[in-house]
């Protein structure tokens, strides 16, 4: 299984065998298939393309935002194979056949995900730039708590964890909000955690 998928994803090798590749600006293209919000996309991309740029510039889903582009702000957070990641610090070609979930896949106007609805109800944003990342992260954080992943503020490593304010704040520290909507984000997440419990 590992061997088969690896062979299928050997996507871009030096053109002439034995040629000495030097880092240049000439693009190297590679094929990759991504499933984004349940829809499969077959792309041919410059190997340098991050997952974030592939989704925004090639699949034209612009919900996930490019904030810092260095993994520091969390605005680009997507849920890939069930885990939240910074889509700016990963290459699209490394995600052959992966299932990518973005804010657009979570809900639609009229049919919102409970976390989206809770953000609206609790005013969990002002300018909205960081919000797609906050919401993806928020959903993943509650799942991480449920699945028993500890955090820096968990008092006991060998216990189960609750979505307390303290836990939510620590676990959301990778999502920065320049408007400072943090306390309302915590309220939105707390409400959704209560509903799920």
């Amino acid at each position, binding site marked *: 299984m590992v061997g088969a998928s690896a062979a299928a994803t050997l996507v871009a090798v030096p053109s002439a065998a034995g040629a000495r590749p*030097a880092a240049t600006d000439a693009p190297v293209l590679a094929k990759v298939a991504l499933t984004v919000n349940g829809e499969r996309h077959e792309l041919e991309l410059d190997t340098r393309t991050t997952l974030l740029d592939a989704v925004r510039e090639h699949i034209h889903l612009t919900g996930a935002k490019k904030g810092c582009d*260095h993994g520091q702000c969390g605005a680009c957070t997507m849920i890939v194979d069930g885990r939240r990641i910074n889509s700016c610090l990963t290459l699209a070609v*490394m995600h052959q056949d992966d299932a990518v979930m973005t804010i657009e896949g979570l809900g639609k106007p009229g049919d919102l995900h409970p976390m989206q609805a809770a953000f609206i109800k609790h005013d969990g944003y002002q300018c909205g730039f960081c919000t797609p990342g906050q919401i993806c992260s928020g959903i993943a954080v509650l799942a991480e708590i449920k699945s028993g992943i*500890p955090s820096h503020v968990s008092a006991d490593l*060998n216990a189960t964890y609750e979505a307390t304010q303290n836990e939510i704040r620590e676990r959301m520290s990778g999502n920065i909000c320049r408007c400072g909507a943090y306390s309302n984000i915590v309220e939105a997440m707390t409400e959704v955690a209560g509903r799920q419990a």
Partner: protein
Amino acid sequence: MKSFTYERPSSPAEAASAVAKTPNAKFIAGGTNLLDLMKLQIETPAHLVDVNGLGLDQVEPTSDGGLRIGALVRNTDLAADARVRKDYGVLSRALLAGASGQLRNKATTAGNLLQRTRCPYFYDTAQACNKREPGSGCSAIGGVSRQLGVIGTSEACIATYPGDMAVAMRVLDATVETVDATGHERKIPIADFHRLVGDKPEIDTTLRSGELITAVTLPKPVAGTHIYRKVRDRASYAYALVSVAAIIGKDGTGHVAFGGVAPRPWRVEAAEADLPRGAKAVTDRVFDGATPTHENAFKLKLAERTLGAVLTEARA
């Protein structure tokens, strides 16, 4: 970013030989450090060998009662592993004190060990930096050095190894396992893995070119209270100014390593005999010969006080 070719081999041997036979090739795991540096053209590989398909993603017991952590085990998974939480709490704690939830979901055991310094001049390509460009000089000496090293530094470079996980691994006496393109395997004690930079700050570790990390092994658990205490400029999501990884027994004896102070996790085993005498007795020996700058001399007092807090917590 400079352009590069890409391949995803399926066995460790193939991966090692792919890097060995291609000039200017690098492994990529989580990508969270390498891509960051490639965007800034601090790293400019011409070929990337993706190690995510190698299957090195399990945590397994060893025959001598320890654990073998695959090189590709994600930081989140290692911190949450029931055996690590129960028997190697200092390691869980160190991992959870680092980066963010998103980053830990991608970051791998090997990539974390090999993360590069966070010296601000290393990141600023307009500045002289011997680590980034050998022979160009060191802007940090006489510059902004608050975050940088106080011991084990050199006249060529005063940067620190910035990570948390390796500090816990140092106190746990971990071993880094590797394989090279010829199939030769090595076991490198963590104490010998990160280098004292000397006059070659561009070389961070004793890993050879093309050598692939396959696993990190931990010996059988050491009893005692496991503590990782990290002091930083904000409560979460920042690198350590000083950190302490410690295992302290009921009688006050134990083991301790420091992070954020040197080009490698800093541990002086001989000083551990003084643990029952309190923090100052230990840090006086651990930091003997320190050469702080005027901006980071506070780290010496901070290290003493952080260890003091750790010993108080262990007694509680």
